[in-house]
């Protein structure tokens, strides 16, 4: 009887050891892989944005070193012009919704930037008005403008098209023109690498939030 009890105890101990080797190691491997995913390995892109360091102006006319000022944080970047009546306000609204959602889940390492591809009209003052009328929370949300040639180089680097259409003049003398432009929000990780791109105006906000969570801290 004693021998039987010893046999059962030994079997139980061995079983635990076997379980540990056969089951725990793969489980551990899966956890490690999941953690790696948590670092954003499974996002579709991982290439340097490669934007040269330039000086831009924000909505308060403060010089912002771009993109350096955003490194160390996840950046959601989009390109707009404030005379756009339809697409750009939609994109801005989506950025705002993402900002609100992230605030609710206490994710604080994300910055939002909207760079104007119409710097001749989009002065800091105009950008501020555009943001104010939308009640933008500027604590991590920045509008940017700057020298037209500098912005052109950024657009080229980011593969953003912004083509002005025919210009006309109203009776009051106001010059009117609209852009045909890329409709995109770009997700950039804290190391300055592009990790995903989304349509800006009609986008799946939850997917962007999930991707941000995947990038983690």
């Amino acid at each position, binding site marked *: 009887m004693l021998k039987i009890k010893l046999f059962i105890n030994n079997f139980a101990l061995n079983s635990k050891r076997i379980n540990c080797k056969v089951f725990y190691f793969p489980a551990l491997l899966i956890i490690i892989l999941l953690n790696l995913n948590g670092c954003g390995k499974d996002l579709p892109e991982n290439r340097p944005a490669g934007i040269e360091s330039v000086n831009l102006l924000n909505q308060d006319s403060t010089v912002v070193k771009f993109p350096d000022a955003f490194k160390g944080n996840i950046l959601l970047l989009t390109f707009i012009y*404030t*005379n*756009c*009546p*339809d*697409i750009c*306000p*939609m994109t801005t*609204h989506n950025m705002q919704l993402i900002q609100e959602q992230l605030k609710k889940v206490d994710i604080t390492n994300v910055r939002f930037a909207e760079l104007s591809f119409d710097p001749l009209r989009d002065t800091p003052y*105009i950008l501020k*008005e*555009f943001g104010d*009328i*939308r009640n933008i929370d500027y604590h991590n949300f920045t509008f940017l403008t700057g020298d037209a040639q500098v912005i052109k180089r950024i657009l080229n680097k980011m593969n953003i*098209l912004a*083509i002005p*259409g025919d210009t006309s003049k*109203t*009776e*009051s003398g*106001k010059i*009117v023109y*609209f*852009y*045909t*432009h*890329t*409709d995109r929000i770009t997700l950039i990780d804290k190391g300055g690498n592009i990790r995903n791109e989304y349509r800006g*105006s*009609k986008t799946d906000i939850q997917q962007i939030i999930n991707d941000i969570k995947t990038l983690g801290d």
Partner: protein
Amino acid sequence: MMLFLSLLAMLNSSGPKVKIENAWVRPANKGMNSALYFNLNNVTSKADALYKVTSKIAELVQIHSTVKNDDGTMGMKEIRQIAVPANSIIKFEPGGYHIMLINLKRKLKTNSKIEFTFYFKTGGKVKIKAVVKKE
């Protein structure tokens, strides 16, 4: 003859008309542009067409459509008129058809109301008020 034509026009415009529903305008600042959105609900058994919208709020008011190009870029084009088939709803919504308000004469504050006049080929004039609100 003129009187006859006027009476005819009145008769034309006094029948059932296309309804303009859920009209709203995006907030914007003076001197900037905005857009008017709504549903055109043709509850009649006659086809109609919207060919003009006017308002004192902007220097220019135009019927536009947002279009997606083959290269993925987005642009706009002006439209001369939009057919509204009998018993149909045509939606003017963000990213699609909209009424462009160019060079606003004053700031469009949230919850304020803006007057517009719609002109239809068959149904004549329809006046509405649209509320200023966010998306």
